[in-house]
């Protein structure tokens, strides 16, 4: 009996290995790989090649010269590039700091038990799911100078004494887009942090309570260290996703007035689709890509370190 079952066991094992490793497994991934090669790999390589050539709207169908790094040098000598880089950094840092802090505070709040908690949590996600074009348009209306409701609130609270044209003044335009982006990003941060908090073991908190640790001490010595991996992933994902925001700023200010809210994706768009200097635009997006790769490498390093710990 035992001998027989062993034999049939090894029989199924080899059949099993065959089943799981035969060539037709690749049929399952083939469509996805094909799509990725044609619609992602190929455009990326094309973009890279173009960034070394002189493609523009006039010679699109003709022959192109190889220019070496000329486009890159031109981009790096353009003052607007540095303005965009600076704006991108400001936009990303300000958005993330507030999205994360507000998101964390809300996550801690929603981690307590009270009626309606799940409903509120879902309602917040709705804001995040709205197409950015819609949220951007709504914020544009709320921030408008003459009849905007935000001016009304701020005046009622006595924070400003006359209406501000938030999006059409160069000193506040970028700030206006940041505020809208914080609103969009808070729910996502909240949900991710909340799911992290819900995974923390209760018994640690109970033990800490017995030792007389107050909530602040518990937060610093239990919550924060245990949440570290979640926080790291969230922040890196946040940096990458915020750095490439295009729609919102394009809708609200289109990068203006002048260049006051131009971030790198807007700059790349203008190069490629307004000035129609495709190669120049390609070099801008390659530089943007390099920055994102650097951030991702930091992320991979951190997450592999986290795994070791």
């Amino acid at each position, binding site marked *: 009996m035992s001998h027989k079952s062993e034999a049939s066991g090894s029989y199924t094992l080899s059949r099993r290995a065959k089943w799981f490793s035969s060539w037709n*497994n*690749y*049929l*399952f*991934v083939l*469509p*996805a*790989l094909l*799509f990725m090669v044609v*619609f*992602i790999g*190929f455009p*990326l390589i094309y*973009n890279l090649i*173009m960034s070394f050539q002189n493609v523009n709207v006039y010679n*699109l169908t003709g022959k192109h010269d190889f220019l070496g790094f000329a486009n890159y040098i031109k981009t790096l000598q353009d003052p607007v590039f540095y303005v965009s880089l600076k704006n991108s950094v400001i936009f990303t840092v300000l958005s993330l700091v507030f999205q994360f802090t507000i998101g964390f505070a*809300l996550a801690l709040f*929603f981690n307590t*038990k*009270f*009626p309606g908690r799940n409903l*509120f*949590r*879902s309602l917040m*996600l*709705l*804001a995040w*799911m*709205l*197409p950015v*074009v819609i949220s951007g*348009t*709504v914020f544009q*209306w*709320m921030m408008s100078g*003459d*009849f905007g*409701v935000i001016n009304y609130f701020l005046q009622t609270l006595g924070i400003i004494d006359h209406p501000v044209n938030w999006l059409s003044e160069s000193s506040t335009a970028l700030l206006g887009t940041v505020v809208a982006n914080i*609103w969009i990003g808070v729910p*996502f941060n909240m*949900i*991710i942090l909340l*799911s992290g908090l819900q995974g923390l073991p209760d018994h640690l908190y109970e033990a800490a309570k017995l030792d007389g640790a107050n909530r602040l001490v518990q937060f610093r010595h239990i919550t924060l260290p245990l949440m570290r991996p979640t926080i790291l*992933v969230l922040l890196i994902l946040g940096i*990458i996703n915020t*750095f*490439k925001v*295009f*729609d919102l700023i394009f809708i609200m200010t289109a990068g203006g007035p002048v260049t006051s809210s131009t971030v790198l*994706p807007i700059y*790349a*768009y203008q190069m*490629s*689709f307004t000035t129609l200097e*495709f190669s120049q635009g*390609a070099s801008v*997006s390659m530089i943007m*890509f390099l920055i*994102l790769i650097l951030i*991702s490498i930091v992320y991979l390093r951190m997450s592999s370190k986290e795994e070791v710990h």
Partner: protein
Amino acid sequence: MTKTKWRAAGGTLIGILIMIVFLFPVYWMIKTSVTPVTELYHNPPHILPVAATFDSYIDNFIRNQDMIGYIGNSFIIALGTMILSLFISVPAAYALARLSIKGKALIMISILSIQMLPGIMMAMPLYIMFSKVRLIDNFAGLIFADLIHALPFAIITLRPFFLALPGGLEEAAKIDGCNKFTSFTKIILPLVKPGLMTVAAFCFLFGWGDFIFALTLTSDNAVRPLTLGLYRFIGQYGTEWNNLMAVATLAALPIIVIFVAMQKYIVGGVTAGAMKD
């Protein structure tokens, strides 16, 4: 006992206050859309509605039919993105979770890295490629472009659902006379239905909400989606905010409907897509 009850009531109260502040923009959008023009530029603005009218909806969706065309296009693009993403991502996620494939790690890393690509970086080479093969001003072109974002998300979100299924399912199916493909469609797929729902909802959303590819890969209103319609509307009608908000509200409506209907799948999907792997 009473103390915890009071605390819970306090929590609900604070929750309601947070909701009022946080959802104010959504309220303001809907409220503005039904505000009569004469009320629109009232200073100070009325926070609560004093009069309601559906004029802006009638003007923009019944008298003027342009928006109806945009809405139809949005549905074609969103449904196309959803269906094609499912067709491609579901088998791929299954194989990456449960079958042995060489270079699995490499494929997963590529899929994860694709998510980091800025849309504008893809838009420009796609514009030139698509002009050569007549995919500009073409629904298929827009759907392919939207898949760049939707497909990696779908695979990353679905894979954990397949991983969570017990081992040995395929063997049992085989004993019952299934081959690899029928065991996948008949046995495995029904078990990951929640995952399929999540992914379907999000892929629809990506197609519905896309702006950057609609902006760069179309010039003909016959294929343009509602997001671009709304954007062009801002340019044309500048400050007629009641009209703009009516269009915005209607553009948000399918999202709200999907959201209400599929709430539980969506909340799970957000965390799964972002954090797993």
